[in-house]
């Protein structure tokens, strides 16, 4: 196992969490109802926490005591091509249905991922996974309940959920196609074989969709990919421009 592969693997996990946190945080103060404003903010906070643990570990790994890399240099000083998050998490919030469905797809994936990552040969990573899994279990429950509510709510909410499905389905395939560093991490006993998560994921999605009285779109539909290798949608550049603004304008400052 090369150090690069572990480092990239950690960055990939961290970037997923951070970019989705950044997206979800856009709702703070603008949610459809106060309780849900608080809930989505909470999920955002959990995800920031996860990303911080992962970035800190990644920084430790490449620093070898030099202290040059930190969670903030990793989050704020890498550009679009260096981010390794999957395309799904960088998609715009859209309406509540789109935000909910994105969360449901991702949290369900993250749930099965972290479940296995608890057995990682890397004790530090296993500990992060174990702690995060508790949070993600709640994210899955919360987003499942909302998918059901919207699917089996009013005609409008159902249509909006179906639109969201149309928008997002093509970004779900990438989750289960391993990148080179994921494969290497899996072979080294550190990472998870994401292709093996697909069946569980589909089963769970189908169960929730059934309760929501909607069905999965044709599974032969074209799937977009590239995010894990830094080939992103155009959205990511703007997310980073906003997120990294202070660090870029005032380089090298303490905050």
């Amino acid at each position, binding site marked *: 196992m090369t150090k690069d592969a572990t480092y990239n693997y950690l960055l990939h996990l961290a970037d997923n969490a*951070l970019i989705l946190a*950044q997206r979800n*945080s*856009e709702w*703070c*103060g*603008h*949610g*459809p*109802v*106060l*309780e*849900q*404003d*608080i809930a989505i*903010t*909470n999920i*955002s*906070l959990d995800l*920031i*926490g996860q*990303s*911080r643990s992962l*970035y800190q570990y990644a920084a430790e790994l490449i620093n070898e005591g030099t202290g040059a890399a930190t*969670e*903030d240099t990793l*989050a*704020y000083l890498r550009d679009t091509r260096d981010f390794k998050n999957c395309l799904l998490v960088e998609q715009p919030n859209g*309406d*509540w249905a789109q935000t909910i469905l994105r969360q449901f797809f991702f949290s369900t994936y993250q749930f099965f991922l972290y479940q296995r990552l608890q057995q990682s040969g890397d004790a530090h990573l296993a500990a992060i996974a174990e702690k995060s899994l508790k949070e993600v279990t709640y994210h899955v429950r919360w987003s499942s309940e909302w998918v*059901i*509510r*919207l699917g*089996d*709510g*009013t005609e*409008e*909410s159902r249509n*909006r959920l179906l639109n969201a499905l149309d928008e997002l389905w093509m970004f779900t395939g990438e989750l289960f196609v391993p990148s080179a560093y994921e494969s290497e991490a899996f072979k080294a006993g550190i990472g998870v074989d994401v292709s093996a998560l697909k069946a569980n994921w589909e089963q769970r999605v189908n169960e929730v969709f059934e309760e929501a009285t909607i069905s999965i779109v044709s599974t032969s539909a074209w799937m977009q990919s590239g995010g894990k290798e830094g080939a992103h949608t155009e959205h990511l550049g703007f997310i980073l421009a*906003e*997120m990294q*603004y*202070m*660090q870029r304008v*005032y380089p090298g*400052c*303490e*905050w």
Partner: protein
Amino acid sequence: MSVQELEQIFLAKIEQEIRIEPKDWMPDAYRKTLIRQISQHAHSEIVGMLPEGNWISRAPSLKRKAILLAKVQDEAGHGLYLYSAAETLGTTREQTINDLHSGKAKYSSIFNYPTLTWADIGAIGWLVDGAAILNQVMLCRTSYGPYARAMVRICKEESFHQRQGFDILMVLSKGTPEQRAMCQDAINRWWWPSLMMFGPHDSESTHSEQSTQWKIKRMSNDELRQKFVDMIAEQVKVLNMTLPDEHLKWNEETKHYDFGGINWTEFWNVVKGNGPCNKQRLDARRKAWDEGAWVREAASAHAAKRKMRQEKQIA
């Protein structure tokens, strides 16, 4: 029992420092005053999420981002407690929110100022939350039980926020020349609006006298404002910054700081809706509410369907 007798009992409770509870008899005017004040307070928490929320996506470090997000989330929580406290007086959250959106209900004018730089997030925590705390600490002893209890919870979190705000400025004050300038600029812009938060002078304050008699309010606007000035005038020295008031001076005789005159024209102007962000703030709240309508409808439609199915199962 006659109204006079009920009123006697009510006033005796106030006199003996016994809290008024939702089911107790209370004069209509007392109820109305509280609904007005508590809902105004709730709206301030909710509208107050906007200027700070403006910096969540741009917070300069992951730690600051997490702290700010948690803080703004706390404000939402405070709004929830307060809407609930208002509901104990016989109003609904929806009604209260409609009053905000129609412009009938007010919220703290301070949130009609823009957050232009990161330092504003520090200044809001230190000055705006600092001013709010003085008012809220007093309200922990207010005569209406649910309001007082909500305040106790809120105060604990607010004092934490104030320390976080001060910490942001502390780091800036020890930073680069640009960071120090950013810090001073934010203090300059937020100082006077913070002083206005305590409301008009006692002589001009319309609701004060009755509220004091009912022990809703226990200190006057000017007393609280003086307390704030005395506190901040000392703390600003720790930052090595200054307050933008050439008349600010310790007075040996009164043992208080003297300070310059407040621009009441600006104050009333912002109250009347002409502040830099009045329109944006209300627009943002209305937009969130209107665009959330279908979500709330879906949630209640689904809840009704579930209930019907459960009833069928039981039958």
